[in-house]
């Protein structure tokens, strides 16, 4: 079957580092959004009438939505990390076979 290797060792290592950063940061952001932290209020896409409600159920729903988005993006990065790990292993194997 054709070679599954499509990036060199340095790009694969960068991919692993980036995906670790992405997973950790997005997971924490997701947790903070789901616990409705006040510091992140500016990052939630609410509109004028959402605020006028009391209790602000719309805003809470939006918080949850953004939180779920973050978790999905974290899952995407888990995938990217897995692919990069495969690339690193394939690179090592190719290096071993050539010498």
């Amino acid at each position: 079957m054709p070679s599954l290797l499509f990036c060199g060792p340095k790009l694969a290592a960068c991919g692993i580092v980036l995906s670790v950063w992405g997973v950790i940061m997005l997971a924490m952001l997701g947790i903070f959004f789901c616990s409705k932290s006040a510091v992140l209020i500016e990052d939630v896409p609410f509109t004028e009438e959402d605020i006028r409600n009391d209790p602000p159920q719309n805003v809470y729903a939006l918080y949850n939505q953004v939180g779920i988005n973050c978790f999905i993006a974290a899952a995407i990065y888990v995938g990217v990390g897995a692919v990069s790990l495969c690339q690193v292993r394939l690179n090592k194997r190719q290096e071993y076979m050539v010498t």
Partner: protein
Amino acid sequence: MFRSEEMCLVQLFFQTESAHTCIHQLGLLGLAQFRDLNPGTAAFQRKFVKEVKRCEEMERILRFLEAEMARCAIPVSAVVDSGGVTCPRELLELECKIRKLEEELKEINCNHDALKRNFTELLEISSLLKASRDFFEEAESQLSSSELPSEDSVSIATIRRNSSASTSGPQKLGFIAGVIKQDRFPAFEKVLWRLFHENFILRHAEIQDTEQQTENTMVKKDAFVIFVQGDQVQGKIKKICDGFRASLYPCPNTLSAREQMRMSVHIRIEDLRMILRRTEEFRATVLTKAATSIQHWVNKVKKMKAIYYTLNLCNIDITQKLIVAEIWCPVSDLNSVQNALIKGSEQSGSSVSPILNRIHTQHTPPTFNRTNVFTKGFQTIVDAYGVSNYREVNPTPYTIITFPFLFAVMFGDCGHGLVLTLLAVWVIVQQKKLSCCRSEFVVVLVEGRFIILLMGLFSIYTGLIYNDCFSKSFSIYGSSWSVRHMFQPSGPWSNETLHSSGHLTLDPAVPRVYSGSPYMLGIDPVWNIASNKLSFLNSYKMKMSVILGVSHMLFGTTLSLVNYIHFRNFQNILLRFIPELVFMLSLFGYLIFLIVFKWCVQLRSETAPSILLMFINMMLFSYQSSDVFLYSEQKAVQTFLVLQALLMVPVMLLESMGDIFAYQAIYTIEHCLGCISNTASYLRLWALSLAHAELSEVLWRMLLRGGLRCTPGLGAVLLALVLCCFALLTVAVLIVMEGLSAFLHALRLHWVEFQNKFYQGAGFKFTPLSFTSLLKTQP
């Protein structure tokens, strides 16, 4: 580490036979710096100059061998230094060996080049023959149809093959065949046309042979055949071909002769190919054999050259039997030096052990600070500004803590600090693998790995204090401010207040808005979403910078006291240290007192006096009746302090009368004005931390907020992409660029504002003869 080591000048006497081994042992020890006992003699007049030249010649040959190995892609095995001493006899043998190797290699290369040239020629001939076959066939067909009397066929009709055509008449047709570079061909054709005006036929074809060039770039060549009549013309054409550097080859006329030539050329090509391959294999064998020990030889030669160079610095006495050397060495290591010498003389088999004689001298000894792998980086950055004087206080132990701390004050972000720490940990773990890399950037990174580690750890700490992590705050303990209690029934706000105003202020006078106890560690997280965040933070960071700056400078001044005591300079204590201290304390120490006092005292913010204005009025002695004071008797205290500071100025001037009064005046002015300017210089701590915080916030707002706010459908994919850009920009701009900037400014604060209070920095560094550092540096 506190101050540089005590050094002593030692005279060594050892026998000439044991000179090599003794110096070798001292080189392995790495604790002796040889003084030059023949400073007047030029390099070519020294005793061992011939040996040094021989070593350099050997180095040249070894470099040539290494280049050849690199060219033929033969790996050189790294060799661990065995530490054995080479005597001069072994060096002679080595010299013979590598000279022979060089000659052999040169011969092989020469032969190889000649063979290659031959090979190229044969290839050209074979392609020429192949191409010219088409020309001659074409010429033959034209000859058969040349009975047509046409205008241009007048010249064409004269094409005739020599063998078949009768040689009647003055028209004897000949041809010239050769090979020329393709880019020269148009010019060649033009010249021929200009000279001979259609009295010739020129045919050319590109050589498709790709076999030719393997090492050089592909040079395209054309094969050409020129049909002309007359010998003189042929001679002229030959000259033109020479001018254009076309190679001409004898080409036979008949088809059968050409075929025969092709066969023979083909056979010769195959033979040459095999010979070339054998030559290359032989060369590879020779080089591989040498590659196993070349590193060892290089090390040996380097060491011998260093030993001869050191011997040039020593004195040989009249009887030619004794060598006298003077070395600087640390007093605490005298025993090890003696042991090394005894071992050296035992190795050479001499009966007399070398004599050590410690002598007193007026010369200033070199500065030697013993460092370990952790402190080495910090000592390097202190030495970069100036090596400390002999036995002066060494600023390095304090720099280990204050430098990363001042960096962190300017960098202050948990997230970025964490990334920096992880980078440093990775470099520390991978240090062995990374130290083989020759790139200068990687070398600097590896040498400074502990500095970066400390910078990262301190940045995490200041990030927690500033409560800043990628520009967002953590609320670990819960904020001390509560917005809910501003609403009715406990506070004045109602729904209409919310809808009518754009900005609202939390009033701490309303009960339970402010919980009474401040946030436990750092800045309250409520400030992150306040719109007047910057006014509060600016005031806080400016005051903190001034406090840190004045403390740092006071610490520098006390270090100068330590220096004065050590050098028994009591006059300077009275006339320099005490006035400096009093001046700084009464003005800037009082400023710090005001800042802290104002923080501790409860004030109404509308009527609180500005510290800066109070300070300026204090210096100008201008007190209005409407002034608000922080405490009673403030006017009296301030007047006293300023007068006291002013009184110190003549004391500083008084230090010595006479001709160096001008120097004293300069010193006094420099110190007094310098106090103010240096204190203001520390405000860069505020400026850089503000820049870093703002850049961080802008990056979040412009980049990540866009990704977070987009919820419909594929919002998660967009968020993933946005986070990738965010990470890359964070590393490139906020960590690398801002990190370098903060590093530079923290370094400047140390070098200028801190060290000019006490540091002389005019010493010279202790550079012992050390084989480990010699072998590490590449030529």
